[in-house]
């Protein structure tokens, strides 16, 4: 005998003490699948024979079982479960997690059990216990189905028990091995003409000849695509029978699939003789079917009966259900799942039109699978949190919509007429898309737990909870509107440290870093010294509203690397955005990039525009204090004859004086007064994204050349010096070092080296996307005025870059993941999680000087 178990079930082994449940369990199930009451009892009492701990024992048992079921793991309960009340708890548990409750009963002669119990060495079981168990069991046997067990298997002899085999089968709804491609079609409701038109436009070809008005109609797609109906094939429309003929025909020939809708189910009830109200269009369908043969009606009845409430498809990436389905129900089975899939989640209340008030499950949906559904007519099919309703009210005069999977393209045909008037107007919301309307609010509780974010450019990134909380605090107090905040930039690593000599950082180490990783083409770019700024620039506030869902009247924003507004003065921000927007227009980049918005990654100068307080409080005051300190000691040592110790001290003070003056000079070089927009300089160095594109697959030369053209348009924009470098060419390297030396000795911060190809993967993961090599004078700002004194510089060479490299890599993949998601029009919460993640990683302690 074989027992075919659904692979997601809660199996209850039922039998008297001594009936061999534990041996049975260990023979047929993995040890981790078995939750045994004896083991739980031992856990809570240290002694498997203590019987006064029943309640705690079963609490623990149910807890373990519920965690497994929540994770969709097969679970086997090894407890006597001969009492109805005990089993009721288990059935309830299975239902709660939508697992199929299965009973396997070991119904042996009680005397056999008694004999076994007598021989037990692990614990003593009182005589007659098995007798008692057996009696309760026998009383229950007949009612097990009624108690809710979907399968009941009774094994009545040792022989039967020994010979049974157990196989596992996927649930009917589990069609993860089916990958389509599918053309998922919304609620048809008897609109046969529109359906055939839609199928034809999707590329389906119809078999031409039909013998009579009842024969099934078939259509197939030349490339083997499958149509997939979300249910509600009939009612309200003009040609219900023909819709059934076509859908049943296609399903029978394997060119279509379907899930059951509430109207289909009601028709089934009718056909099976149940008393149902002939309302909401069922009357029309029934009238048509009454003219058909019994045989046809029987065919319809069994077709609907065999149609599942939902299907879990394409490796778990797609769920199709008539009214949608919550994440916690995907690929599971219970009456509740079936009801949800057909009717959605309701409170029982009705609205002013007499329609059920639906809970908006899709608003809270955060699942990985895309959920495609129909049921509630909407004006347009729109994605919302990875779900999409494709019932566009054809029968109400709207349109019939198909979603192509996996392409996610929408195809629709207009209704030929309004067959019935809708009970309430089908309306859209506030001029936003459904997703944008939803994204007016982000939910704090979506971001507070430890997160693990999958990134297309690298390994998944984990955000620890405490960092996430710090990021949320910062974001909520200082951050700009999250709808604008589509990206936060990664930190950039410093180059490996020069091992000796007068330099702490030198191009040779950066060249060697990339050379040794086999990178043959680098770009070197000037590093401007200002503040990092991200510029979202659109062609106008209307574009911003349409694409970003913003309603603040802005055409763009300038924000810092931690997501704060760069400008406190919104008028100034608007002027700057406008200047850049006009420059993009004039340079023809809108057309060329086929977009009406861009995200620019830039350095915004002067440094003092944003950082004046800090420059005064930290950098200039240090320089001045150091100058004065040196000056004072030099005055105290102003004698012609000094002992040797004091001569040393005096020499050092002279150096300190010079270094302090050097620091002051470097800092002052990055400061100038800003009185109007004219005084700012923007040096963009990446065109990060535009409509439909993230440009991290374009070489840096592409970015530089486009940005040079942009800079020609307006003085507020400035270019960045750059050149290509082959790290294996001696002359390239020498001239790069000359350039760096010259640039940094005239006040330049330094150079940035990057792989020309932008994103490059090596054997051990991502190649550092950028590396800075800062100048000897500039580094006084970082390591203090006296960093290059002989006694200091060698100690400073010890700096661990590993963590910085890892952080730069994680932030890079995370930031760009968010940007890709934005371009793909994913829910804002998915985009925001990445931006918050970058900010959270930034709160990790890492040497801030690298």
């Amino acid at each position: 005998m074989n027992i075919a178990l659904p692979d997601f079930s809660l199996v209850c082994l039922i039998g008297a003490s001594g009936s061999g449940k534990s041996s049975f369990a260990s023979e047929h199930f993995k040890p981790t699948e078995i939750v045994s009451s004896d083991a739980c009892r031992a856990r809570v009492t240290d002694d498997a024979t203590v019987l006064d701990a029943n309640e705690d024992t079963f609490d623990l048992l149910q807890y373990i079982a519920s965690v497994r079921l929540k994770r969709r793991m097969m679970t086997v309960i090894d407890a006597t479960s001969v009492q109805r009340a005990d089993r009721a708890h288990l059935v309830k548990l299975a239902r709660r997690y939508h697992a199929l409750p299965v009973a396997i009963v070991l119904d042996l002669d009680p005397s056999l059990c008694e004999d076994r119990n007598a021989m037990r060495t692990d614990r003593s079981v009182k005589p007659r216990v098995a007798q008692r168990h057996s009696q309760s069991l026998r009383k229950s046997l007949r009612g097990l189905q009624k108690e809710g067990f979907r399968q009941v298997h009774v094994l009545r002899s040792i022989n039967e028990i020994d010979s049974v085999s157990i196989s596992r089968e996927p649930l009917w709804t589990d069609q993860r091995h089916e990958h389509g491609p599918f053309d998922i079609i919304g609620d048809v409701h008897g609109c046969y003409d529109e359906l055939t038109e839609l199928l034809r436009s999707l590329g389906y070809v119809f078999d031409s000849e039909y013998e009579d008005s009842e024969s099934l109609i078939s259509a197939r797609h030349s490339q083997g695509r499958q149509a997939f109906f979300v249910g509600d094939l009939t009612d309200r429309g003009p040609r219900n029978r023909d819709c059934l003929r076509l859908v049943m025909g296609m399903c029978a020939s394997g060119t279509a699939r379907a899930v059951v809708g509430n109207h289909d189910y009601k028709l089934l009830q009718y056909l099976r003789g149940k008393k149902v109200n002939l309302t909401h269009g069922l009357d029309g369908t029934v009238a048509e079917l009454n003219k058909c043969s019994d045989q046809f009606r029987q065919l319809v009845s069994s077709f609907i009966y065999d149609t599942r409430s939902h299907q879990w498809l394409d490796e778990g990436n797609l769920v199709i259900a008539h009214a949608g389905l919550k994440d916690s129900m995907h690929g599971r089975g219970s009456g509740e799942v079936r009801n949800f899939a057909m009717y959605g989640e309701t409170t029982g209340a009705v609205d002013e039109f007499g329609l059920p008030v639906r809970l908006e499950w899709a608003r809270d949906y955060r699942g990985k699978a895309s959920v495609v559904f129909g049921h509630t007519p909407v004006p347009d099919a729109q994605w919302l949190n990875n779900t999409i309703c494709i019932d566009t009210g054809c029968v109400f005069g709207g349109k019939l919509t198909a979603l192509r999977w996996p392409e996610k393209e929408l195809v629709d045909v207009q209704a030929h007429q309004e067959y019935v008037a809708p009970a309430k107007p089908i309306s859209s919301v506030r001029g936003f898309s459904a997703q944008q309307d939803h994204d007016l609010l982000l939910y704090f509780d979506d971001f507070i737990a430890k997160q693990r974010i999958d990134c297309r450019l690298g390994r998944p990134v984990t955000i620890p909870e405490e960092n996430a909380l710090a990021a949320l605090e910062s974001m909520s107090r200082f951050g700009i509107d999250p709808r604008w905040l589509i990206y936060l930039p990664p930190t950039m690593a410093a180059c490996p440290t020069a091992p000796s000599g007068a330099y702490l950082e030198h191009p040779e180490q950066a060249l060697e870093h990339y050379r040794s990783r086999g990178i043959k083409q680098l770009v070197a770019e000037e590093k401007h010294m200002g503040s990092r700024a991200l510029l979202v620039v659109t062609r106008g506030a209307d574009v911003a509203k349409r694409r970003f869902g913003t309603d603040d009247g802005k055409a763009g924003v300038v924000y810092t690397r931690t997501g704060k507004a760069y400008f406190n003065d919104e008028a100034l921000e608007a002027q700057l955005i406008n200047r850049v927007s006009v420059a993009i227009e004039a340079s023809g980049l809108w057309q060329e990039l086929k977009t009406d918005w861009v995200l620019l990654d830039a350095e915004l100068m002067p440094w003092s525009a944003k950082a004046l307080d800090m420059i005064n409080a930290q950098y200039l005051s240090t320089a001045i204090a150091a100058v004065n300190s040196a000056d004072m000691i030099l005055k105290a040592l102003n004698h012609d004859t000094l002992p040797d110790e004091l001569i040393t001290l005096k020499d050092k003070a002279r150096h300190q004086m010079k270094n302090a003056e050097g620091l002051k000079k470097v800092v002052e070089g990055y400061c100038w007064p800003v009185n109007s927009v004219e005084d700012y300089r923007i040096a963009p160095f990446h065109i990060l994204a535009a409509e439909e594109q993230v440009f991290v697959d374009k070489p840096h030369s592409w970015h530089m050349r486009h940005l040079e053209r942009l800079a020609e348009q307006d003085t507020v924009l400035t270019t960045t010096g750059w050149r290509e470098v082959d790290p294996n060419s001696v002359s390239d390297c020498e001239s790069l070092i000359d350039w760096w030396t010259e640039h940094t000795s005239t006040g330049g911060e330094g150079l940035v080296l990057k792989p020309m190809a932008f994103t490059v993967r090596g054997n051990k993961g991502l190649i550092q996307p950028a590396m800075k090599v800062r100048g000897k004078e500039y580094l006084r700002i970082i390591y203090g005025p006296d960093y290059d004194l002989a006694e200091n510089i060698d100690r400073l060479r010890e700096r661990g870059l590993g963590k910085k490299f890892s952080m730069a890599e994680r932030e890079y993949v995370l930031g760009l993941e968010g940007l890709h998601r934005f371009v793909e029009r994913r829910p804002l919460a998915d985009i925001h999680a990445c931006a918050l993640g970058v900010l959270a990683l930034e709160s990790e302690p890492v040497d801030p000087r690298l």
Partner: protein
Amino acid sequence: MQLEITLTAAASDPYVASDLGYLLHKNPARVFTRAVASGTATVFYSENTAARCTATLYVDVDPIALVRGKNKQTTGLLDQYVNTRPYVANSILSVAINKSFAQSMAGKSKDRQALADLQLPFEAFLGPVACQGDEEFVLSLFEPLGYTCSVTSLGDDADSNLYSIKISATIRLSELLNQIYVLIPVLDNSKHWWVDQDEVENLLNKGAHWLAQHPMREVITRRALKHRRELADVLLERLSVLDDDKGSDEARNSNAAAISEPVISETSGVAPVRLHDQRLDRVAHLLKEHSVSRVLDLGCGEGKLISRLLKTPQFTKIMGVDPSLRSLRRARERFYLEDGGEALNERLQFQLGSLTYADRRLRGFDAATLVEVIEHIDTNRLVALERSLFGDARPGLIIVTTPNADYNALFQALSAGEFRHEDHRFEWSRDEFKTWCQKIEQEYGYRVAIEPLGPVDEHHGAPSQLASFTIDTTEVQTA
């Protein structure tokens, strides 16, 4: 940084200036060096005659050690290499004084004890000093102790707080050294992380007798005992440093709780009940009046309103929400939640949250309060608060208080257009507030009642204004 001690002597005096060497236990002919915390102290004499003798204590700080610590096992106590710490007089110099002149500070002299017990004409020069305060402040520290004091500004511009300080008095050397030792960190007013904690607390022992009479003793004590800040601040600071505007964030953090309304008790002319207390009492009263039981305090801070609500059994569930982890930690400590037991923890909860995000955990409450909270939100983010609170959480009663900008005219300290608090993103006049309240009524189905809060001025109204929004149950609910 350095300290110069000068002793002068007239020909008629029973001592010569070069006796300073005996008083300091340092032979003027030699140079003394010793290691001190994160640096090297050198004592030498730059002048040595019978009339005038000057000993200089110079501390050359190792700037790397300040950041990295003295060895690989320790980490340093500073974030930034570019810092005034190595160059200005701070607690490192105090430590160096103590290490170099311990005997003298104790009033002992091996060879000239009689002289050590005498009050002698001393001068001291200290510099550079990065003083948290103006010249007046420097004078107010030294003059009450009997010094003649002159302060020279060193910076390029007048605002710079970098000085050198010269003091002189006829005083015992031990007194002079002890007072300088204590007052250096007070002038500097930075965290002396690089000094052993015990040592910081010793500061006060050194000054015990003269400090008690000092008119500035409160400031001196407070500044001398600055302690380490908490991790959360360090994290936030790290974030703000990246943005180049550390200065303003720090100001925001440090002032976040202190709403400065200094004039109110004076103008009211009655026993000064602080306005903030009035506000909280009124809000608590309204909550009682509305017979609500489950209350959200949004922007709860450290729980001042909650401590009023907790005593009333009517409130069966109180949740405090704040965006600051530090405030929440303090609030939990304030109510002893850690050891408070199940019943208290069930009734009173705190959680991190933000008003510009919605939050499912905030649904299902009877009432929410926002006491002086909305003005901390950027005006263009206010709409997110409206949607999350009035649209999503939708408690039956929402009480909002906010400053009345009309009343600002009565604050002498405020110039026109200036806000009462650095972190305020806006302050509304009575009309502006009313307009906002009416917009809420219309868009979200609430009814509002507005009232003044605090003593009412005939022309400018009350310092604060309060709106109670009650959910309008006559509207059709469309879930």
